[in-house]
């Protein structure tokens, strides 16, 4: 059994419940623990980078859609100053999303060196 983001067992995603309007968006949204489980599977299959991505995803699973999209936008070239990226990293720390925060800080350092900051 796998739990959805809402906590509902994925086996409960039935047409019957659908017809009673009992299913909501979070019932079909992946749970961070599931992503952590998939990360371990990826690790066992010789892809630690995929595992790392799935662990960053587990962190972002808690972050609302609009914010995820805004973070992507902030990391595009010449969109953010060093301070803005640090603010973003701190926000991520707060979720907590330390792996994503680390990625943003790493990007900030590279962007500074490569003139990719705003």
């Amino acid at each position, binding site marked *: 059994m796998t739990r959805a983001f809402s906590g509902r067992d994925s086996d409960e995603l039935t047409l019957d419940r659908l017809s009673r309007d009992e299913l909501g968006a979070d019932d079909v949204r992946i749970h961070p623990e599931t992503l952590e489980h998939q990360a371990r599977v990826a690790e066992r299959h010789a892809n630690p980078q995929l595992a*790392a991505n799935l662990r960053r995803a587990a962190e972002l699973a808690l972050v609302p859609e609009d914010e995820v999209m805004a973070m992507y936008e902030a990391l*595009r070239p010449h969109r953010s100053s060093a301070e803005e990226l640090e603010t973003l990293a701190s926000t991520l720390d707060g979720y907590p999303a330390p792996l994503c925060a680390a990625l943003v800080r*790493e990007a900030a350092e*590279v962007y500074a060196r490569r003139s990719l900051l705003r």
Partner: protein
Amino acid sequence: MMDQQRVNLDGFAHEDVGLGLVALHSPHDPAPSLVVADGLVVEMDGRAAEDFDALDSLIATHGIDVSVAEEAMALEDVALARMFVDPAVPRAEVVRLVAGTTPAKLAQVVALLRPAELTMAMTKLRARRTPSNQAHVTNLLDDPLLLAADAATAAAYGFRELETTVPVLADAPSNAVAVTVGAAVASAGILVQCSVEEAMELEMGMRGLVSYAETVSLYGTESVFVDGDDTPYSKALLAAGYASRGVKMRVTSGAGAEVLMGGAEGCSMLYLESRCVSLARAIGAQGVQNGGIDGASVAGAVPRGVRAMMAENVMVMARNLEACTGNDALMSESDVRRTSRTLPMLLAGTDFVCSGFGSIQRYDNMFGPSQWNAEDIDDWLAMQRDWGVDGGLRTADPDEVGRLRRRAAEACRDVYRWLGLADFTDDHVELAVDAVGSKDLGDPDPMVVLGAAQAIRSSGLGSLQVARALQECGYDEAAGRVLEMLGARVQGDHLQTAAIFDEQMQVMSLVTDPNDYAGPGTGYEPDDRRQAEIDAIRQARGVEDLRVDQAQWRSDDLKGGGPSVQGSDPREVVIGLSPGVGRTVWRTLSGLAVVDVLRELLAGLEEEGCTARVVRVNSTLDLGMVGLTAARLAGSGIGIGLQGKGTALIHRRDLPPLANLELYSMAPIITSSLYRLLGTNAGRHAKGATPVPARNPYTDEAVEARYHTSVIALVALERACVDRSLDNEDIEVVR
């Protein structure tokens, strides 16, 4: 004449290192190097850490397994290249070592592989055991009903991923819904994508309108990356964003992209692509679509460019990623050349042989025409069957396709109506069901689609509402399938490398269906059911089919008589028939009724003042013996031999069996007037006059390919009628 060939419509370029118009090697490609200090990469491919660009930084920090780097980098290129090919070296060992290689190293290694070796490497190194294929489903109008019908068709033909896109960006959410509905009507477990600008695609993915993403472009130089308005780090976040909502994602790269954007920095296409593939692994993408893609024609224009595109795919596999192997954008006007480019991948099998087989008409393909399009599906099915390989497609029964198209278009209409997105007429449904392409739809109002798309976007509607609408409108099975795909997002098993769903919703991936090729007798082989599917193309015929065809031409105009006796009239010519004629064989390969052929022969003889007799020779189907038997029975000593398939000759009683006076060998193209001429000439031979020899008709078409199946079946019918115990019998032809 050579200039007229279609291959000369293609552009061919001289190598130009400055422009990056070079496939495998450039003098500006760095020499492979790797220096690790305290577990950190401090130099890679000749560049010190402080000089790393954004690609180098991400690759060096995340993409290199430093625990095997020393071992891997110390290997001779040729030693590692041999491991790619050697079936005794397990895939896992290649994957382990390649994880420690730099981009320049891997590029040099795969550049050593010759075409047959690339094919072997692909067979062994692809991630998933079972090959698959992906289709483009788009149209000029973004018409939802046609998209739904075409998605159903694509699913019926066996495609497991459907990629749509839009001519009008804002239509994207509508296309995603329409294709999702059409796919769900036809099959469980179809992955659906809508390729648009990165941010919009992410939004649709997160909202559950699509089940995978592919338009996440990587480039081999930092400048081109930035021109594409991204960095390796923004892409890394994108990758995590998709996975955070359970959406499968692969990145896109491929030779020629940097050249097209004027930013190749003098490097070879293979080296730049190697950087992309390293980056894909480094950011944690599960797979890569490469092998030219938008730059396929650029790569194809230079020497060894096609080989470089295949080498790109092999790099992806060696880095333990899903390979969606190009054969996407049309790279040649020549059917020969595009087949040549694709064939090795079809033979080897890849995770997706085409990263977009245009399942729709060329003019409706909004990615541009594909390397393979709807009109090529029969060719693809024939190639699969010829080689006994699985290119992901199957024959679809036309009645079933018609039923699915109707149901898909109706379901889409009903869903749009129920969700308040648009109201389509019954006429529109009928047009979409029967349409070959969007040109058959007339001139629908483009604002309808745009309005529907805006309504989907602004209401935040997702696949859960689509499932609900399907259910409310009475499409329980399709509703269940959309819901299952949503359930799959919760499970997340399809986030593993090279995942697809089979029609029972089982995930097939590197984890659940790993490629276990280790030489002959191992690896993927179609199971009996799949092999039967590959073999059973709709055009295949057997003897029984032909027997039924022939029986439709049965005639009462040939009547059997008594045993034949020796004739004495010096003007008598005998026409000998093979044993099946008038029993099971009634029609020649040229489509004439045998009785009509006989009438022409008889008329020709009559014009020469000869008498004629028709005799069925029951003891042999050999045309020479049939003709010779007829000649020996004839008072004149001249006979005509006629096989049911239409082959005919003139014989004389003193000739050896295999000789003849005239022979019509090309049965499929012999006309009535030629048979009459044969009768005339036989008459002249009988009279001792000089015949005007008939010219055998000639064609440069593949007549043998077209007719040999029928010939074999006709011969089988004739052979079944051979009976040596029977006399030759006179046959009356009703005139």
